[in-house]
């Protein structure tokens, strides 16, 4: 499946839109009708779109509730997670020294090997759970829920940057550059944070604004280059990531950024007025950046589903030529989509520099920019899906650190599980085949190669 779903852009419902948008809407409406017809004539050959379509189009009318559950996307997503966790557990078990020892006499006492394998995998996963959701061994209530707040802290930049990647996807742009945008956003925000000394409130507001501007400029440049020269955004954003890393390293070697008296590439601490206040008291690291992430999610939802700009962006993403014919300024759409995406990634940079790290280094973005891509893919580029995926991956990351500390299982296993989840979710036919689930819309059609068919509209993204 594809990042920007294949649903046609639904006609906007507000009556007060300018007349020039009229044509666009009409075209879109016609497209929708045509596509619905196509879905019906395809006779159930098409899998459901990335986001559940309105009732009646995807599922065959005579399908029962059970069939709908069996063919639904939620089940595929759930099974993908389970399957990935099983595969990850196998990997943990296979590399466990106790398992290796027990397997030397596997045919004598096979239960020893299986027991050791179960102990290794379940131990790692229970440490992962306790490090990310609920610590059973905690003495006070705040100690028990501490892991959950850690999860939300880690999820904050993931959600912000993931929203940026998702928004660009919806406009048909493959934004691999969240990493660079986070870095530049954090640089702008950090500079305002430790250079200007302003009263509380205004200072933080300026820091947030600076971070968003930094990310927006960095990503908007990519949008501009793409719109003007037709250069491909995948290459541009990858290159911009490297340029950003080197640029930040350079800044951190100049007197304007480097901590006085230090030879390391590290900035001074941000002023206290420039930091996000803690959300649940100073015992927890969770800060108000998480609230900003929630607000950002609401904003992106509103932008994509309720605003004219979002409508145009989705039109550009669905079919750039059709959008151009309908009077949408595609170049402006590219620049705008990238700039907003960059501003969101910049918010992630702010969350890092003035929430978690409180200081600017070249490693301030960690690998959030790359994780954000998987977050957006898992969230199917919908704002709330990205939000949920961000929290899931935040839990993986926070729990992974705890797991590595307590059982010695490398945190890299988290990367494996995460990428497997995205791979499986991207290929619903594979998951259905593995679990012998019926194909959607064609419960009795059984096998046949038709289940792999997908509307081929989104090659444009690649």
């Amino acid at each position, binding site marked *: *499946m*594809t*990042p920007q779903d294949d649903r046609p852009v639904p006609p906007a419902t507000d009556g007060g839109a300018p007349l020039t948008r009229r044509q666009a809407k009409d075209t879109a409406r016609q497209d929708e009708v045509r596509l619905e017809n196509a879905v019906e004539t395809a006779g159930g050959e098409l899998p459901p779109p990335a986001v559940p379509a309105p009732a009646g189009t995807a599922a065959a009318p005579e399908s029962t509730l059970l069939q709908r559950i069996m063919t639904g996307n939620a089940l595929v997503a759930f099974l993908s997670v389970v399957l990935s966790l099983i595969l990850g557990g196998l*990997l943990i078990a296979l*590399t466990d*020294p106790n398992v290796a020892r027990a397997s030397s006499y596997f045919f004598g006492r096979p239960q020893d090997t299986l027991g050791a394998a179960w102990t290794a995998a379940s131990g790692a996963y229970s440490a992962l759970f306790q490090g990310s959701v609920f610590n059973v061994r905690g003495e006070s209530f705040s100690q028990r829920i501490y892991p959950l707040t850690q999860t939300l802290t880690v999820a904050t930049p993931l959600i912000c940057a993931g929203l940026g990647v998702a928004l660009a996807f919806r406009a*048909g742009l*493959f934004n*691999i550059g969240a990493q660079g945008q986070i870095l530049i956003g954090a640089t702008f925000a950090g500079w305002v944070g430790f250079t200007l000394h302003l009263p509380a409130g205004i200072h933080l507001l300026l820091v947030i604004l600076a971070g968003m501007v930094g990310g927006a400029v960095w990503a908007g440049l990519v949008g501009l*280059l*793409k719109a*003007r*020269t*037709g*250069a*491909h955004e*995948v*290459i*541009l954003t*990858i*290159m*911009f990531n*490297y*340029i950003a890393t*080197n*640029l930040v*390293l*350079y800044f951190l*070697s100049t007197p304007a950024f480097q901590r006085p008296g230090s030879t390391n590439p590290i900035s001074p601490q941000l002023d206290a007025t420039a930091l996000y206040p803690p959300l649940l008291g100073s015992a927890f690291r969770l800060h108000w950046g998480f609230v900003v992430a929630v607000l950002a999610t609401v904003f992106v939802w509103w932008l994509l589903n309720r605003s004219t700009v979002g409508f145009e962006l989705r039109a550009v993403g669905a079919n*750039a*030529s059709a959008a151009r014919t309908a009077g949408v300024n595609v*170049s402006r759409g590219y620049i705008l989509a990238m700039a907003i995406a960059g501003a969101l990634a910049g918010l992630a940079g702010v969350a890092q520099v003035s929430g978690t790290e409180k200081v600017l280094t070249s490693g301030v973005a960690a690998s959030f920019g*790359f994780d954000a*891509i*998987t977050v957006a*893919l898992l969230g199917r580029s919908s704002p709330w899906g990205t939000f949920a995926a961000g929290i899931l991956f935040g839990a993986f990351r926070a729990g992974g650190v705890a797991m590595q500390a307590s059982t010695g*299982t*490398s945190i*890299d*296993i*988290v*990367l*494996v599980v*995460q*990428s497997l989840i*995205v*791979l499986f979710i*991207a*290929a619903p*036919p*594979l998951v259905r085949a593995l679990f012998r689930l019926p194909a959607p819309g064609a419960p009795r059609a059984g096998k046949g190669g038709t289940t*792999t*068919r*997908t509307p*081929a509209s*989104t*090659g*444009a*993204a*690649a």
Partner: protein
Amino acid sequence: MSTATTAPARGTGDATVRSWKNPIILSVVALFALLVFALGAPGNDVTFRLSEENDPIVLPSIVVSAQLIGWLAAIAMIALAVLAILHTRARRKVPTWVPAVFAILFLIAFLTWVVGSARTPNVALYGLLAGSVTLAVPLIFGSLSGVLCERSGVVNIAIEGQLLFGAFAAAVAASLSGSAFVGLLAAAVAGVLVSLVLAVFSIRYVVNQVIVGVVLNVLVSGLTGFLFSAVLSEDSERWNSPPRLPVIEIPLLADIPVIGPILFQQTIVGYLMYIAVAVIYVALYHSRWGLRTRAVGEHPKAADTLGVNVNRMRFVNVLLAGVVAGVGGSFFTLVAVSGFGRDMTAGQGYIALAALIFGRWNPIGAFFAALLFGFATNLSNVLSLLGTPVPDQFLRMLPYVVTVFAVAGLVGRSRAPGASGIPYIKG
């Protein structure tokens, strides 16, 4: 990569429409060269050493005045810019040799200026070039892998993963078997495994190819990182101490100054690289298989109509690309250093992707683009030792900035294969 072709169509379409982009860029760069390389030239001489003292054939060093070279190059560049302006005014196409010569002049002027401004204005040209080729070897394999995939219509973002998995498999297999050649074979197999996932997901399950590629890179990074800490670092004597591939020196030819070490003093991976470039170039443009590959990548429907099995062709090409990139990955653990390290490819796969686009989806072009990247990386290494006025970070970002300019159209338009990235569904 199909959308790359939409916007600039109006700029370069037919000869009657004047495009001022090239003349303007050339003029700006020429003025920059005048200001920096000519007016800002250091007063001292620059020495380029061509051979070592105890080489069989000793060449004298080239000693030039930085100011003379700076002025000559700047004036020549301005002349070329004027030529481009005149051509454009007369509504004629600017000849293709103009930007090429311009780029070479710029390179010479830059090199002279930057070495001249260093604390020790003396550089071993042979070492600079040989090091560039060495650094470019994995890039070249990676971009060849990209050529094979993209020419058949599959975008390969997973080059990074193929290289990394190849490096990992080579290290483990060579350590266990004690033979570097077994490691080389294992690297090829590992590359094919990554390719297999890419092919199955993008061709059989029609998942967006860029998504599969990105996710595969994460998967390989996580998998190798996990195995590295769980297995390799636990007992690195057994798992992670591969023997190195021996350097095979071809007698006499290896003694030729400057180009001898580059061409005739390589490991088997280095020789395989030259062979791979040549074979893929010839096969792609002068064989039936190549014609079919290109047809499938440009217009799969037409190819299908003429009886070519589009998806099988793509599948085979993606697997072949895995062999190429996997062998390239073995360079990291069998040639460069002896042993695997976490994420040791460090984004080289993405640079290979850029080299592929810079080289216009052509094996020879990708080869030279990768060499340029290797040269830029090596130059920044050498210059940071010599001590230059340019901050180290700017030298390091040079290859990436060059790529951005290249992709944005400085070196003419590069056009992706028509159907690259678009899955083919028969019917």
